[in-house]
């Protein structure tokens, strides 16, 4: 490395360190995964309701990948089944709640419309959970993911109360709040979140919100989009295509 290169590196390190708030260059250098730079990404997910077949592979993969407790009361992602009957009555249930429901043959009568809705943390741009955390244990990363610092969390569960989407739970063993991270450990290695990886129908599309020529870019361009509970102004980064008005 000649002197010019060295100086360039030093300048880069110092300026990027300054961006994340006065970090020492050494602290910045060992940050995250090898060459991964959070500032260069901004993640989001598209979910196409018309494509979801309710096979629950995403739920299963998420539990495996993230060591989520196996009991059916802790989910980072889950799939709801909506059945709207001819008489306009709506029934909803979460598939695979303890049973192998996604394998059951379900033939319902008088169905007006029916569909599956995959749910997960919406990785809001204005996250109420981050706002209410009394100790700053949950925060938004530069690449737009909401994480929980398990070493910091005091387990007061205010964030669980504040989340409009029921996306958080208290981990029964660690006794701290836990939630979907978009599989952050996979992202830094250039992999897709586990649920997206295993989805057989590409009902989930993951990518960088900034990119245009990408599956997510195309998804955003080609669909009429909706988010969950828009009136709460949480600005979710999980975008739904073909979402029914009954879903909330």
């Amino acid at each position, binding site marked *: 490395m000649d002197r010019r290169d060295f100086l360039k590196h030093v300048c880069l390190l110092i300026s990027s360190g300054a961006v994340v708030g006065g970090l020492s260059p050494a602290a910045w250098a060992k940050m995250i995964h090898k060459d991964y730079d959070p500032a260069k990404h901004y993640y989001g997910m598209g979910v196409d309701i018309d494509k979801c077949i309710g096979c629950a592979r995403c739920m299963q993969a998420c539990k495996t990948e993230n060591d989520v407790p196996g009991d059916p009361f802790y989910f980072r992602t889950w799939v709801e089944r909506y059945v709207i009957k001819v008489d306009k009555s709506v029934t909803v249930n979460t598939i695979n709640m303890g049973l192998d429901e996604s394998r059951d043959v379900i033939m319902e009568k008088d169905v007006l419309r029916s569909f599956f809705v995959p749910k997960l943390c919406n990785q809001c741009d204005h996250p109420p959970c981050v706002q209410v955390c009394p*100790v700053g244990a949950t925060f938004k990363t530069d690449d737009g993911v909401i994480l929980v610092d398990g070493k910091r*969390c005091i*387990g007061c569960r*205010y964030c669980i*109360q504040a989340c409009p989407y*029921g996306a*958080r739970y208290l981990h029964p063993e660690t006794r701290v709040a836990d939630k979907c991270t978009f599989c952050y450990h996979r992202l830094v290695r250039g992999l897709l979140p586990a649920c997206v990886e295993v989805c057989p129908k590409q009902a989930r599309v993951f990518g960088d919100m900034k990119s245009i020529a990408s599956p997510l870019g195309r998804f955003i361009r080609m669909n009429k989009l909706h988010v969950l509970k828009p009136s709460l102004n949480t600005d979710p980064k999980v975008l739904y295509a073909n979402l029914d008005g009954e879903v909330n």
Partner: protein
Amino acid sequence: METAQNFAELAKQVVGFIYPNEIEIHWSILIVVYPYITGLVAGAFILASLVKVFNVKELQPTYRLALLTALAFLLIAPLPLQLHLGQPWRSYEIFLTPNLASAMAMFGFVYLWYLMVVLLLEIWFEYRRDMIVWSSESTGLKKWVLKVLSLFSTDISEKAVAFDKKTVKIITIIGIPSAFLLHGYVGFIFGSIKANPWWSSVMMPVVFLFSAIVSGIAIVMFLYMIIIPIQGGKIDMKCLDKVASFLFYAVIVDFSIEVLDFIHRLYESEESIKILSQLVSTKLFMSLVVLQILLGMLLPLGIMVVIRVFRLQEELRKLLYFVCVVLIQMGIFSTRWNVVIGGQLFSKSFRGLTTYKMELTGIEGLLVSLALLIIPFVVLAILIKLLPPWKKEELAGG
């Protein structure tokens, strides 16, 4: 494993649809106890301040008792929060490294401000002269405890006592907004959760505040009616009637605000109205309609109207007052229950209701909460022993 079984049991009782993570009621009975206790603190302090700031002379016999009650409950107030945390040993983070955007992080500031700057200071200045005198009169441990408590202060000149009195008045004036802050802030913790329509309301801090005043006045009245006879004194009926009349007005204001909130919700009839009416008419019917409104509010109001209209004789009046304050305590506890537990019984999908099954023996169980409700009375007993609120002649003379 046991929790999983409990949840599986609970899952069977779910009506309609809830998000899968919602089966666990995260804020349990302990979080019901917390606002109940802080409410008593704020209310008792407001009653005390009526004497000093508004010069309501009749209330003088309850002044010191109200201060000590507020202190006893305030000292215990953080305990339920502490016990409820998933990681109790990290609670210092709230005080030392708070996230300033969080309403809950304000707890450290509000609590310390109220405990140190308002209550302890006021009590210290109020009792300073007496502590010096009692210390010189007593021997052994008590002498030294009082000496330390008075910070080895010695000056009981008229000038110094006058300074104490003036300081007490100033602190009380600061104390009133602080008491409002203390409980308004607890209401804000709930009222600012936009995800939860049962909580999310600007009225929440106001409702909390006035119910706090009601419960605080009632608890002081309750204690006054119990402690005075125990100490062999005579209940000052003038004082009791006056406290009761303040209680009467406070209940009316509290009731009106709650009714206003109710009508407002019903009239606006937002998306959540269906599930909330289902909640009120099924899961909360007993605790909200019967306990909180009928028995905890309308019945005591009715009794107090009867007392005022028919000018009943002293003994009957005492009995009815006592019934009133007990009913009111129960009503306000139900209010806290309905807010805290009620707000978690319906799904944020607005499609279903879940059930809360209280533990008996666990940390978040019934026995612990009962203990937490009893400890403040023990603390109060010690405080009264150490810092008697009444002089001997006051007890006898009435």
